[in-house]
């Protein structure tokens, strides 16, 4: 008697497992919304399963098995497929890992399915999201993904003369007479500031310029102050600013105050700090073909291409854009990291999002490119 309950539970569980297999077998090509926690099976009898198999193997970095889920009709080599996932040249993708994904069908027929997959990467600069439309085809009774060839920039062997300026910093000795050899900190100025409420909280943004003739390392801090003059919260621009500003350069900044709104804020106290740093005017990165479009998800997005005009690889390009209304007022600042390295003399696309509520207000924009290169501070 004392084992009866246990035996019944085991029997019911086994029955449910068998029923589950039977039901999924009947489902045929059922396509639905899938989360990244689905189980890996050896054969992808449904498009969902094919996507799951592919992405679970990518997560596990089991490249041979992941590539076995790619149709030979893709025409892509395994090495190129792997490189598409792990990146190259020290780009942000090289330091990222696929944490999860969501997928949903866009179109489906008996032999072909289009799935939209939202990929969630964890990266050193925070979580990043990538949206891809994966085309799947049935090969016999197995579904496989058609993986597009990834265009890899081909940089011809060449010598690029670099003649740009560099600023070095020489600090005085301890024996120097007091006040005799001081070098003042660079003079920077906030040229615009706007505080708005957003879905995530209060946002303080604007632009700051280096008015000096030397490079500056700039940080902008903001303190929200209530009606009594007491500080509510203070935050810094963190990575939503180009910290190193060359003479007369302008950068947008954005300071987020999560879970706060401006209802109780009477004043915003701004504080910009600038220090003298060694810097280089190289690399020069052009921002080409900038335009505001609507992306596949219906979001308003500023697209463009970065053109590296120098001779060194930019490992992690970072795009920061300020958006203006008709009166030239900064209404939003958006940023985005490009997950592929920017090779010399080559183009790399970028996109930064504009909140839907502001897309009609935006009249013009200004983009600056921040860059991080391995081996350089």
């Amino acid at each position, binding site marked *: 008697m004392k084992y009866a309950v246990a035996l019944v539970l085991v029997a019911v569980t086994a029955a449910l497992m068998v029923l589950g297999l039977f039901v999924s077998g009947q489902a045929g090509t059922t396509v639905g919304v899938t989360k990244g926690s689905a189980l890996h099976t050896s054969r992808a009898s449904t498009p969902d399963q094919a996507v799951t198999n592919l992405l679970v193997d990518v997560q596990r970095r089991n490249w041979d098995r992941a590539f076995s889920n790619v149709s030979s009709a893709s025409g892509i080599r395994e090495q190129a497929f792997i490189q598409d996932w792990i990146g190259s040249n020290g780009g942000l993708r090289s330091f990222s890992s696929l944490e999860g994904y969501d997928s949903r069908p866009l179109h489906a027929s008996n032999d072909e399915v289009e799935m939209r997959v939202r990929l969630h990467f964890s990266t050193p600069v925070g979580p990043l999201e990538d949206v891809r439309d994966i085309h799947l085809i049935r090969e016999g009774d197995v579904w496989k993904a058609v993986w597009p060839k990834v265009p890899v920039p081909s940089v011809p062997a060449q010598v690029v003369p670099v003649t740009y*300026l560099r600023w070095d910093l020489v600090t005085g000795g301890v024996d120097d007479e007091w*006040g005799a050899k001081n070098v003042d900190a660079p003079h920077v100025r906030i040229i615009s500031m706007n505080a708005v409420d957003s879905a995530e909280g209060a946002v303080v943004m604007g632009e700051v*310029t280096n008015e000096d003739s*030397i490079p500056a390392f700039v940080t902008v801090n903001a303190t929200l102050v209530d009606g009594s003059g007491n500080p509510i919260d203070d935050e810094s621009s963190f990575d939503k600013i180009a910290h190193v500003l060359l003479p007369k350069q302008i950068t947008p900044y954005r300071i987020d105050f999560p879970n706060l709104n401006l209802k109780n804020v009477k004043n915003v106290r701004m504080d910009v700090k600038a220090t003298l740093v060694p810097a280089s005017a190289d690399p020069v990165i*052009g921002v080409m073909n900038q335009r505001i479009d609507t992306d596949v998800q219906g979001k308003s997005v500023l697209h463009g291409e970065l*053109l590296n005009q120098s001779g060194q690889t930019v490992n992690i390009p970072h795009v920061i854009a300020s958006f203006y209304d008709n009166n030239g007022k900064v209404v939003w600042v958006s940023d985005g990291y490009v997950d592929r390295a920017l090779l010399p003399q080559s183009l790399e696309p970028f996109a930064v999002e504009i909140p839907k509520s502001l897309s009609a207000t935006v009249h013009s924009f200004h983009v600056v490119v921040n860059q991080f290169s391995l081996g350089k501070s």
Partner: protein
Amino acid sequence: MCLAAWAEVCSAQDLRAPTSAVAGEEATISTTGSGKATFYLVGPGVSHRNDVALGEEIHLAAQDIRNAGNYVAILCSESCHRASFYVTAAKPVTLTFLVHPSRVPVAQGDAVSGVALPFDQYHNLVLTPLNVSFELTAKDASLWSKSVRTQNGAAWFRAASGKSAGPLQVAATADDLTARRAVQQVASDPCNLRITGQRTRTGILVQTQPVHDCAGNVVTDGTIVTFTATGPHGTGTVDAPIKQGIARAEMDAPGPVVISVASGVVMGNEIRVGAQ
């Protein structure tokens, strides 16, 4: 007899501080009375105690009064008596000279300021008024000069920067003391920023004419100039640094474009470049 002796002691025990004392110079304090007493000296950074004989002079060594300021001398026998005296700074031997800023754009009013502070050999600020002459020179030509009397140990000036970029020598002179500082005068904001552009095999090569400020100085190398090309394919921008007075960039735009230029908050001209 006892009362008489007590009265003699009390009336005799007194001290007289010097009316003027100079830092680092010996001084004496005279006492009256007879017998033994204890002498205390308390001053800026100084306090010590001596056994002295009443009726004799107390010698203050040079190192005892090196710091300028108020001192208190206390003489205790049966009772204590005190006297205060002030030690003034000695003759100035150094002129500390602070000049701000270290870089300044040309032709800016009240842009250069400086303060001179005379100190003696013991690092005491010399409060005695003295004349300090300030002079600004550039390329061996005097731009400005002024003589200022120190007040509370400080003399200061404020002056406009010169018209030409380059080092600005700032000198402060008091008697035979001179201190010199250098301020780097740099070009001001660009003035009349103009660009030219032409199509090349790979795009549009656009460059500025030599960039000068309104006083005709070549704008500092490294200054960022932003080129913006607007056309049917969207907008392209390049932040290019000035090198040897000229900023240039290559724009990738196959269609017709309007190219504008700006540096900081200064706008330049626009040019139109036809399609490839």
